[in-house]
């Protein structure tokens, strides 16, 4: 994936032998403000879009848009992050950094989707939630937690498309679904590479290394089982042909909605639950004795250094989980 990207970019072709630089080029591509965001993609994909405003509690966050779209004749609730493509729009969109009102608006509109039997499509492209006091004190943490929780149980199909930056909890607030799609040049990470470097390397200058270590690229995330489908980007990247990008997304989204639509709602929600329930590998250490409820902690400690590898059970049977290593 990375190689393909580099093959099209003369400027960074020098880094072909330098994986760290190649990953960083990918990160920069994902952050290109000219990439199409939710409204640009919708313009190309949807026959009709009625934007709904407001969280019915406090405000209308312009960094998250939500509404009712008709795509290929289907009624679909669309929610997504909206960065600006120029300075003026960026200011109006608060630089694409959402506040609690954004997630609360999303929840309100996603609730309409469930109540009126519309599937949900989300577009994810956000550096992270607004990290300042205005968001903190009005409960950005609660808003993200509630939105994540809601999306795990909504009784309607949910397709997520990561189109650019899948940044941390701020992205996750709209990124829980039955199918997780990512554009080829997008990234997904638990913290920004800069933030990771600052904390772990004690210097922001190691952000390239951090991006590499976290395996942030769409292709790597697919290998890890976090992303289900990677969509190749046209030309020199999504920003060079937004219409073709939208066409490719539309094709995959509609195909996935068809598949998901053939499941019963109960099956769908249970499969979504299981999909995330099994995410995250761990091992089960050897037990010194057969399971005993009152095993003393000293017994457990004796077994600490000897482990046997184990895979998490996968009741949903849906997604591959990469093998855990046996480092412990």
């Amino acid at each position, binding site marked *: 994936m990375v190689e393909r990207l580099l093959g099209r970019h003369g400027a960074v072709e020098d880094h072909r032998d330098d994986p760290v630089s190649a990953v960083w080029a990918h990160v920069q591509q994902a952050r290109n403000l000219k990439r199409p965001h939710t409204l640009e993609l919708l313009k190309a994909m949807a026959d009709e879009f009625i934007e709904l405003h407001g969280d019915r509690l406090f405000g209308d966050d312009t960094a998250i848009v939500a509404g009712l779209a008709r795509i290929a004749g289907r009624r679909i609730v669309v929610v997504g992050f909206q960065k600006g493509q120029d300075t003026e729009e960026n200011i109006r969109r608060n630089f694409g*950094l959402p506040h609690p009102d954004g997630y609360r608006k999303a929840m309100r509109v996603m609730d309409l989707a469930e109540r009126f039997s519309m599937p949900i499509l989300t577009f994810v492209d956000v550096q*992270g*939630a*607004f*990290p*300042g*006091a205005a*968001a*903190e*004190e*009005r*409960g*950005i*943490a*609660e808003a*993200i*937690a509630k939105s*994540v*929780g809601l999306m*795990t*149980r909504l009784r309607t199909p949910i397709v997520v498309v990561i189109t650019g930056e899948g940044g*941390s*909890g701020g992205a*996750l607030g709209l990124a*829980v679904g039955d199918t997780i799609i990512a554009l080829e040049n997008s990234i997904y990470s*638990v*913290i920004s590479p800069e*933030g990771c470097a600052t*904390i*772990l390397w004690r210097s922001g200058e*190691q952000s390239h*290394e951090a991006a590499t*270590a*976290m*395996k942030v690229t769409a292709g790597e995330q697919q290998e*890890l089982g*976090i992303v289900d489908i990677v969509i190749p980007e046209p030309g020199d990247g999504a920003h060079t042909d937004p219409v073709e990008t939208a066409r490719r997304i539309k094709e995959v989204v509609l195909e996935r909605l068809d598949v998901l639509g053939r499941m019963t709602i109960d099956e769908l929600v249970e499969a979504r639950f299981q999909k*995330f*329930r099994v*995410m*995250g*590998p*761990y*091992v*089960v*250490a*050897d037990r010194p004795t057969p399971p005993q*409820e009152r095993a003393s*902690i*000293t017994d457990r*400690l*004796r077994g*600490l250094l000897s*482990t046997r590898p184990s895979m998490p059970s996968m009741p949903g049977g849906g997604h591959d989980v990469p*093998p*855990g*290593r*046996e*480092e*412990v």
Partner: protein
Amino acid sequence: MPVRLPFRPRRDAYPPDLWTKCPGCAEMLFNKQLDKTLRVCPHCGHHFRISARMRVEQLVDQGSFVERDADLAPVDTLGFVDLKSYPDRLLAAQLSTGLRDAAVWGVAAMGGKRISLCVMDFFFIGGSMGSVVGEKVARAGEAAVAERIPLLIVSSSGGARMQEGTYSLMQLVKTMSVVERVKAARVPFISVMTDPTTGGVFASFAVVGDVNLAEPNALIRFAGDRVSAGTIGEELPPGYARAEFWISHGFVDRIVARAKLRDEIVSLLGFLIAPINGPTEPAPNPTSRPRAFFSALTGALSPDSNGESHPADTAAPRGGTTNG
């Protein structure tokens, strides 16, 4: 009979015959006395961070805790290396804490009422949530639903564990999906936020308890200082977003001093567990405060103690957590 393992002293193992300087008031506190006050400074009320085991011991009816899934252990799927490799960090944390990862869960009784309990341990890589922590929280919630007993989670965490990449981010989904099932089952969930409860733990299960309790002065935040400063250049005042802040901003129900925490939770359980027979229920039996359930182990786990005290618990351990 102490088991001699090559463990470093646990950060919360204060040798009983030495002194610790209180970071709140700078008083020198005799460790034996500090243990009697549940690791709360008798002069200024500073709440020292405590291990998951000590927390369990302070909360539950004596001898009632039965740990489950103690054998779950983390793996380094990403092959993550920063200044140290993730396996090295894990091993160091395991040796120093005696835990396999940053959470302990099991069933216990409080005031005679059976509960499902999960407690995080900040001394294990900053209490960061990776796959094992997420799994334990999820299993604690599932047990609460299956056995129809209240869920109690005591959080103490710097956030998601970066070394597990997006798997750690997915633990927010995993834990919230189970919490949603706890709520749908009308099983009570009490969340206790202790210092610190930040990042992805605050932004998932910790903030959505039916009742949210917090220890005094606990740092509770989503976005870390470094992220705020790096992204929007906003410098937040020191001490921003402590527990008391969250009372006035509506996200914490009650600040509870550690000395009263157990009794308060028992009282809440008395309300949130519907009595089986009719609208009234008998008053709960007076229960003795729990005695040191883990005290022998505490001794066992610090054989190589060099006599240092560890007052630096207000400095967040680096090396594994993300705020925001």
